[in-house]
């Protein structure tokens, strides 16, 4: 039987009491919006209890990754109790190597510490999405959950906002490119030729770049990053 890859489901704990809950939520959003928008879908964890049978089929319809803020593992336990076995269970404190010191519960107070933590967790989740996508899932499990549950799916799987790059005259879409640029700009990466190495290194985490294409991507990324920074300074 031919293998088809279903969208990977990602379920975050709500974690209102702790900063790690907000990090889990924001990291999941980043993967859904920017890093892997075409491959991922989500559902609110509390919907398993408040919702209907359609919502409870989520984990059986998708290979599912849970992202928990702490070792109480509510997302994993809740998903397994009401929906089905999860394919991977990630915990923010494990990824960060301990509690998220200096991070905040409210996004209003978000600063560099929060931003770094969210990026670390998002990148780990994206890597797990790639791992599950590479494994593939049976074709009959790849039905579109959104169409079969009356729109119960959260509307997070939209295309990446403006991640296009002109490489040697052709247009290439890179998931999450604006987010990558934003992140590097906040980290203080100056536009110009000296940024090429860093840009190439980060972008190739999310987008395959063959060795013979490196020079073209390098040039295109430098130009696009300069344009991004210029736009930022004007606004």
């Amino acid at each position: 039987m031919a293998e088809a890859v279903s969208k990977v489901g990602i379920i975050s704990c709500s974690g209102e009491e702790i900063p790690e809950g907000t990090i889990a939520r924001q990291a999941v959003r980043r993967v859904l919006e920017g890093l892997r928008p075409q491959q991922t879908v989500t559902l609110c964890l509390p919907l398993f209890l408040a919702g209907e049978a359609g919502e409870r089929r989520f984990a059986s319809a998708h290979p599912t990754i849970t992202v928990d803020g702490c070792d109480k593992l509510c997302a994993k336990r809740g998903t397994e109790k009401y929906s089905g076995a999860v394919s991977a269970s990630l915990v923010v404190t494990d990824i960060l190597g301990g509690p998220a010191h200096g991070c905040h519960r409210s996004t209003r107070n978000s600063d560099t510490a929060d931003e770094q933590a969210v990026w670390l967790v998002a990148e780990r989740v994206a890597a797990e999405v790639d791992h599950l996508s590479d494994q593939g899932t049976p074709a009959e499990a790849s039905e579109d959950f959104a169409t079969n549950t009356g729109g119960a799916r959260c509307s997070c799987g939209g295309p990446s906002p403006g991640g296009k790059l002109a490489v040697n005259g052709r247009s290439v879409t890179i998931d999450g490119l604006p987010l990558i640029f934003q992140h590097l700009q906040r980290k203080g990466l100056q536009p110009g030729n000296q940024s090429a190495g860093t840009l190439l290194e980060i972008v190739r985490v999310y987008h395959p770049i063959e060795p013979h294409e490196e020079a073209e991507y390098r040039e295109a990324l430098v130009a696009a990053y300069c344009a991004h920074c210029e736009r930022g300074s004007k606004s």
Partner: protein
Amino acid sequence: MGNNGQKPEVLVIPCSGVGKVHGLISREAVYHVTDKVLPGQADTVCLALLVTGDAEARQRVQETPCVTLDGCPKLCAYKNVELSGGKIAKGIRVYDVMKRHRGANFGTATALSEPGWAVVEELAAEVAKVAKNEVTV
């Protein structure tokens, strides 16, 4: 426990919906209440803990008046607190406050815009009104 280590007099619980801006507004409104409007008197509980049936979380919602904030008609916060045997003082729907700002761009499920933060503050004021009847001022 509340921020000052005392037992909170009201629990404010959002749906934290991850798919739409409404969920983020509900979550931020709770932090506005617990951190700014009623610090020490209001606290929150992880809704996911209630979903998993955590005994301590259930006991907290059963012993303390709760205000729930829901972003969509599925009313996840309200229903989960109710299913846990919680004392619901009021269930507030985010949409009812957003309606006052018809046509505004509230931001996204990741980041709120200024109108989004305005709704957060209005929701917090609604919670405070309810809480006045529940907390010892």
